[in-house]
């Protein structure tokens, strides 16, 4: 280990890798939220409730497929780069968000919904103004879980040329440079922790004072 290698990894290589990694994580989580939350909402409606279990099982299976396998399978179709990486990570991140969205919505006190309906709020209004806000802490904790997954799994993206912190790790392994490994893995861990803490803070902030414990 040399200070020079370490410095090089941290200041020359890491900024770009970190940026790429953040980009991958943000894109994946954004898409995951856009798919999962509406899906969760839909599956918690009485009309589609019966599909809930099937969908969750399907997502369970998707999550069980190793990320590496998905990357490999997606490669011939989507080619190299960020696209297959995001797809693979997406499969990993849908389940926790969908599951928590459903759980959060189901757990909303039925009396509150009944009262809202009895006052003449439309189903749409009840969803937007009552159910989602009340389920938000649970939905957010699903997003948190997914984010941490994606940050750690995201290191695999480097294998298909999507860049990110994985570049440092893979590079470090190939070149026998533990400094690179340390910087890549360390920053990955740090990023996961920071995002987790940040989302926890947001979760706290959006929980109204009357519901904090």
């Amino acid at each position, binding site marked *: 280990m040399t200070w020079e290698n370490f410095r090089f990894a941290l200041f020359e290589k890491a900024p770009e890798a970190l940026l790429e990694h953040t980009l991958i994580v943000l894109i994946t989580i954004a898409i995951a939220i856009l798919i999962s939350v509406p899906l969760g909402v839909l599956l918690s409606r009485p009309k589609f409730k019966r599909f809930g279990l099937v969908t969750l099982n399907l997502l369970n299976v998707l999550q069980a497929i190793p990320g590496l396998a998905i990357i490999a399978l997606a490669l011939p179709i989507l080619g190299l780069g960020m696209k297959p990486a995001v797809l693979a990570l997406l499969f990993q991140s849908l389940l926790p968000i969908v599951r928590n969205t459903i759980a959060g919505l189901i757990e909303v*006190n039925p*009396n*509150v*919904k*009944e*009262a*809202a*309906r*009895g*006052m*003449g*709020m*439309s189903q749409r*209004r009840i969803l937007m103004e*009552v159910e989602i*806000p*009340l389920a938000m802490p649970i939905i957010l904790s699903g997003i948190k879980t997914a984010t941490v997954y994606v940050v750690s799994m995201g290191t695999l993206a480097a294998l298909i040329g999507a860049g990110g912190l994985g570049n440092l790790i893979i590079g470090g392994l190939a070149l026998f440079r533990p400094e690179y490994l340390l910087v890549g893995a360390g920053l990955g861990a740090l990023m996961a922790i920071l995002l987790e803490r940040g989302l926890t803070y947001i979760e706290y902030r959006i929980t*109204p*004072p*009357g*519901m904090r414990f």
Partner: protein
Amino acid sequence: MIELKQITKQYPGQAMPAVEQLSLSIPEGEICVLVGPSGCGKSTILRMINRMIEPTSGTVSIKGKDASGTDPDQLRMGIGYVIQQIGLLPHRTIAENIAIVPRLYKWPKEKIAQRVDELIVMMGLDLEKTRGKYPSQLSGGQMQRVGVARAMAVDPPIMLMDEPFGAVDPIARTHLQDELLRLQKEIKKTIVFVTHDINEAIKMGDNIAIFEAGKLVQFGTPEEILTNPTNAFVENFIGHDRVVKKLSLYCAAEAMQPVGCLVSETGLPSARQKMMDAETEVAFFLNAEGKPTGYFTLAEFEECEGDLKCLRKKVLRTEGAFVQTTTPLPDALSLLLEFDSDYLGILKGKEICGMLSFKDIRRHVYRKEGE
């Protein structure tokens, strides 16, 4: 006002209909209590009025208009609704909770704020302390008040209340009941009130509808129901203390008789003669200012031989000797029992206007029973 015609509600997969062939007309501006054991269909009936549940057959009309012809959300916006578990939105402040229906009506902001303040004060809650709080920061009784305030926000002519005071402790419940009755005198809403507690029904209802297994068994004023229960079920449901319960419908003024004899300090020597003349065995004693302070009986008077000091010390009954004209009969009866006395003076303000004995209570109830 609210007209239910031939309503039947059959839930799928159940042998018996939850409500069967119910026809009921709920008069305007009065409290109509739906009462019965749990599972008798009373909540279902209530919820069919605002279309939370759709009847299998039959029609509900409100002010002569068929409710099924109105958009359910619109219909509900115009009907106040209070449920037992209150259902305040936990993520909204008290002010925001009360403002829900006005917001659905798209009232301007200032008007909403003004109305919210008005309602918080009307419910006897501290305006500044309550407005910004969240439901979980209030007591059960306070939450229930907010629930009622929220239902009254746009001043709907009809309010539906499903066991509104079921979840609060007995003291708070009595308080809330009294307040609602007081409020109702001013607001004169058509209130449909569901409860399983017959005492609450007797207290709150202008009319009571008693249900058994989805069927209406009796509809009438509390007095009618307590006097003439239609069948054994109603009699049982009311309880064996039916006649005692009836007492609560009357106040002292209704059962009292005129004062037999009034005696002042100076008139004491002639008190005996006065009582004999009036053919009464009780006299009420007035102090120097002419205010009634107590009473004594002829026998007690003779014991003291008309001596003022002896009378004051030994026989003059002052404790629990007076009630107001508006005192409910059960309270008056309780005083008679508590102080082991035979008479009560009835005051209107500070003036004595009548008296009440066990006999009077008995006679009053018996007369009412015979009607």
